[in-house]
């Protein structure tokens, strides 16, 4: 066991991948000498050289598109998109090409490309640097989407993404990059399956489902609720596509109440998908409607007011009160 930050854990995970898998390589803007704007690839170019840690031209479609070509030649590229809001120049390549290649080739071709995207707000940044576009990708069949919330998961999930034969987008909670935690670099343990949700805290009165940056928020909310005598179960979804509905359903059957929280706007979001599925699967167990907590239907607001936009402990507790009122 070693203590490290999420950023360092991803760095170590990438180092392990580059060491173990000679056909893996990293691509992105400023990932070489600078080590990425968040230093996630720090030191890797010195160790593995410029052919395996590739500073690319400033062109997201080109990054994803050439990664697809490399994967067709048998390579396993890991692309870094600098910020969530900058993935859109590459959106066409991700949705029309990467996601569909295996299907349209009748299974003859595989394109095991990994795309890393730092996402979410709470860092006081300027526009396009704080967004949560995961639902746009989750809606596209052919992609897998995972998001770690702690260093141990981060270390293993990036390697599991590279090992996966499908294209995988790893959304990295940028405001938690410096969150420290224990990492077991010997074995993933309970994190062996990146597409499985984890119950982080058991409870009996309500379930709160979160992922990525809101995991610590939900855990703190559950702690606060406990002081008020409410027992809240917290689930870290970990995978946004596919979603581990079995784990969520089992929890709701026990607690009877479900709150889903994410930074992304609630409309058309992952919370709505979970609400619909759970109402189908566990209708008779529900004591209250599924309540979503998320961003508003507006462009991500300016930094000075983002605290009013982002779901926090109080917003989750308010949703809990509403659920318990039924």
């Amino acid at each position, binding site marked *: 066991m070693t203590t490290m930050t999420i950023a360092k854990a991803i760095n170590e995970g990438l180092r392990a991948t580059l060491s173990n898998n000679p056909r893996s390589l990293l691509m992105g803007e400023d990932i070489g000498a600078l080590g990425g704007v968040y230093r996630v690839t720090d030191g890797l170019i010195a160790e593995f050289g410029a052919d395996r840690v590739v500073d690319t031209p400033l062109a997201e479609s080109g990054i994803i*598109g*050439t990664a697809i070509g490399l994967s067709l030649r048998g390579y396993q590229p890991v692309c870094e998109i600098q910020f969530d809001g900058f993935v859109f120049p590459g959106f066409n390549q991700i949705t029309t*090409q990467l996601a569909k290649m295996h299907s349209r080739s009748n299974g*003859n071709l595989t394109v095991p490309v990994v795309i890393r995207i730092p996402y979410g707000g709470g860092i006081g940044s300027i526009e396009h640097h704080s967004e949560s576009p995961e639902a746009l990708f989750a809606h596209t069949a052919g992609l897998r989407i995972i998001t770690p919330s702690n260093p141990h998961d981060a270390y293993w999930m990036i390697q599991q993404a590279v090992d996966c034969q499908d294209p995988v987008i790893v959304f990295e909670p940028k405001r938690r990059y410096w969150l420290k935690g224990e990492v077991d670099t010997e074995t993933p343990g309970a994190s062996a399956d990146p597409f499985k949700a984890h119950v982080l805290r058991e409870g009996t009165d309500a379930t709160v489902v979160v992922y990525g940056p809101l995991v610590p928020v939900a855990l703190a909310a559950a702690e606060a609720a406990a002081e008020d005598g409410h027992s809240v179960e917290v689930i870290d979804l970990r995978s946004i596509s596919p979603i581990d509905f079995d784990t969520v359903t089992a929890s709701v059957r026990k607690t009877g109440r479900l709150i889903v929280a994410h930074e992304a706007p609630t409309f058309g979001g992952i919370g709505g998908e979970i609400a619909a599925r759970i109402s189908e699967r566990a209708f008779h167990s529900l004591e209250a409607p599924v309540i979503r907590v998320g961003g508003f239907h507006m462009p991500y607001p300016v930094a000075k007011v983002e605290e009013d936009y982002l779901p926090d402990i109080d917003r989750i507790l308010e949703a809990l009160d509403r659920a318990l009122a039924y």
Partner: protein
Amino acid sequence: MGATHLPSTEFDGTEMDDQLEAEAEAQLGDPAEPMVQLLGPDGTLGSDPVFSKYAEKLDPDTLRGFYADMAKIRRFDVEATALQRQGQLALWVPLTGQEAAQIGSGRASQPQDYIFPTYREHGVALTRNVDLAELLRQFRGVSNGGWNPKDTNFHLYTLVLAAQTPHAVGYAMGIQRDQKLAAANAVASGEAGQAVEPNAAVMVYFGDGASSEGDVHESMVFAASYQAPVVFFCQNNHWAISVPSSVQTRIPLANRAKGYGFPGIRVDGNDVIAVHAVTEWALERARDGHGPVLIEAFTYRVGAHTTADDPTKYRGSAEEGLWRAKDPLARLEKYLRAEGLADDSFFEQVRADGDELAAYVRKTTHDLETPDIRTAFANTYVEAHPLVAEELAWFEEYSAGFADEATADEASAEEADTVQTDRAAR
């Protein structure tokens, strides 16, 4: 209106101001713009200081093969168009007029090269030994691909314009890495200097319309930065559906290469010998590690964009006539006959082979089976996926319900028959 310009009546009454007309004429072939041409429209072989040596290597069999391939793919084009008109294909994308650009370039590629087409490169597919009946799967709506690219190194058609251009560059970057890995392994195993895999290059096709897409720009930036072994083969067929190439570019497309820092060459796209020479040069150069080349094959889409298109809405028959006079097949036939390299019996045989191919394609198209949607469930992901599994299970149950109904219908029909029989017996 300048004296050298065509009278407006020949453009079906379309009025153009002088500037636009001058531009249109420039697009049709400004003699001031250098263009590699070896075999002229009159069928005589000219010379070029750089590329004649490639033409000189071509033996009579190869030249006859160029003609046979061009004739074959034109015949195929006619057949596919007919199949669409008869409702056997949802859509067809004709290539007539572009045979030399496609056969000349395709035949310059080596088996180890990898080709990324757009969706009109049926002629290139022929040179890569793709079964042309397989090619029709996509247009019949029974597959989004149709062939396995690994069999022929001819990638699937890409319908999102220019999206395949960065794939080509990435693939070429992979070839570069393969060569380095092979060299490193050879050194490590003490076998340095021994023959390894032949060097490979990538060729990617796109058109004058797609040249405006950002992906072409990004691809050329990447290709130049990493000196990737890739040949950009742009067929400037003058029309992006209804929009003339003058809207896509103010300069010859080949000139754009200079801005990226690699050679760009305009070649007469209706001259199969010149296209072959220029492409062979470019691919050799790429394989030898000298980086990318842009080839602009100056040609013309004689037919419609697709079978859903109506060119009479946007261009005149006079323009088409001008280009028919530059026909790639006619000029090679003239040359072969004049040089005594082919006689009537050869051309008769080519026609017969074309008809045979057409009959094969017609029969095979009729026989193409509609796939089971279960294959779409199976091919969405490589690895097991719970949502796909759940939806497939639902679909199976739902479908089975209809099977029960069908059985029930059958049973009630039988029952009705029995009643009828009973009544009759009474």
